[in-house]
């Protein structure tokens, strides 16, 4: 049922990864994604994959859940792999049949691309599995806070993100309800040409917008009644404090990047 959808995809837990500061997790995730694209040989790639595996272990997120997050990208994964496999014309030819030609470089590129996408998605999924949406937006707010100096409304942006996350399930439920109600009046949403279908959406979109505006209006009142005045003078219940755990993680990441750089120096690039 719709009630079962989860905001973001946070899995509650108390693992090492769960306890890490959101800012550290966000920065490290970005660092990881950039670093994996710097890997040009199997040694460095292997190191990255091993590191991702370690993080998965530390997060106690079931592998099954991680695989589930990969499902939406399965097609892209296959597509890029096949593309790389047969469109790379340089390198030693391993196999040829009519116009299909497979080179070692093509094979390696395909493997690299696939592994990169897999790790990229898994690592981002780990971030969202182990960080609550609130912590995530708070982390982003804190990380972007230097931008306040150039008058970027960082707090408002973060608040908007939180509210959007909060209202996604509510609005999905609403769409479901409106669709059922209009279908009960014989609305036909499945047949007809493009214009007809676009027209058929009006009975759903209009009530949806009317309701969304009403909700926004009421929410604004409710927030004001709870003394919300923007970011000025606000404190937070959940203070972000960097601890030993976060320092260890940061050092480990620096070591990882250094390792990748070194391995790239000592071993030749294969792609």
């Amino acid at each position, binding site marked *: 049922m719709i009630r079962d959808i989860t905001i973001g995809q946070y899995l509650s837990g108390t693992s090492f990864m769960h306890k890490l500061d959101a800012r550290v997790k966000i920065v490290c995730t970005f660092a990881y994604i950039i670093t994996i694209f710097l890997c040009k040989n199997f040694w460095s790639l292997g190191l990255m994959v091993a590191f991702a595996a370690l993080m998965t272990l530390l997060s106690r997120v079931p592998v099954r859940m991680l695989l589930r997050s990969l499902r939406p990208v399965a097609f892209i994964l296959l597509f890029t792999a096949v593309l790389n496999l047969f469109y790379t014309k340089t390198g030693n030819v391993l196999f040829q049949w009519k116009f299909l030609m497979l080179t070692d470089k093509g094979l390696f590129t395909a493997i690299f691309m696939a592994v990169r996408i897999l790790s990229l998605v898994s690592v981002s999924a780990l971030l969202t599995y182990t960080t*609550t949406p609130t912590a995530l937006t708070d982390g982003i707010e804190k990380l972007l806070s230097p931008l306040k100096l150039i008058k970027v409304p960082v707090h408002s942006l973060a608040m908007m993100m939180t509210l959007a996350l*909060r209202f996604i*399930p509510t609005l999905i439920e609403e769409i479901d309800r409106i669709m059922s109600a209009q279908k009960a009046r014989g609305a036909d949403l499945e047949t007809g040409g493009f214009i007809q279908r676009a027209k058929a959406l009006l009975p759903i979109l209009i009530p949806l917008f009317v309701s969304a505006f009403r909700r926004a209006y009421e929410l604004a009142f409710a927030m004001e009644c*709870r003394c*919300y*005045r923007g970011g000025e003078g*606000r404190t*937070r219940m*959940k203070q972000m404090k960097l601890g030993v755990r976060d320092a260890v993680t940061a050092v480990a990441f620096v070591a990882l990047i250094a390792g990748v750089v070194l391995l790239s120096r000592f071993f030749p690039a294969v792609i």
Partner: protein
Amino acid sequence: MDTIIQLKNVSFAYETEEEEKTLAVKNVDLEVRRGEFLAVVGHNGSGKSTLAKLFNAIHLPTEGQVLVEGMDTADEANVYDVRRRVGMVFQNPDNQIVATIVEDDVAFGPENLGVPAAEIRERVDDALRAVGMYEYRLYEPHKLSGGQKQRVAVAGIIAMRTDCVIFDESTAMIDPKGRREVLETVRKLNRELGITVIFITHFMEEAALADRVVVMDGGSVAAEGTPAEVFADTALLRRTGLELPPAAQLAAALRENGVALDGDTLTPETCADALFRAAQKAGVV
């Protein structure tokens, strides 16, 4: 008992494009006493919800004065202080929850007030325990029932340590079970924490539990008194589009048939007691 909110000859008109403005609230004089459980009843359009929004400076009086702890709500500089003393729980439980986790939502008010982190934690836990939602503190709000969401909203207000909570038809959209939960919570807060409660409702059985009832009709106060006094006037109820609580309806029908019932007959419990006493007196038990 001292006064927490005072309305002096208050009128209010919504801003419309039309020239003629109809007053949603007309010349209301009202005192809310500290620590009381005040119910405001009336049919839709009677002005009861508009009145509620005048108590905490959502609406500012077109005429007259609203004083909250002596502060005039019309003075821009007071608005923040008024709202930290008088909180409000709205009708639609979905449209007042801000955060994606229950405890973060309860923390929202104290955070806005600039309360130190450790104290917020304490207040949030206390508030969630007070409304019986502590076990749900890590839940996502949309997975809760209507009654539970309203209790979270109540916790969000009392975590601000407000003196007074207004319930603006907060039970209208939830099922009977949720309504009972909310009502029990409200009575507990009123009795145990001494929080002043202003309860706007059109359910007469809820109003029957209050210390005092104000009946709104056509924007004015049509009657005011204890539930027993107000519900004794059936003509008034009929005139204002209201009805007796079901238990009181039975008691009224029996009295019409010559049955002498003594004491309070407004709630099912008290009415059953009265019927039991009458049966004993008649010697049939």
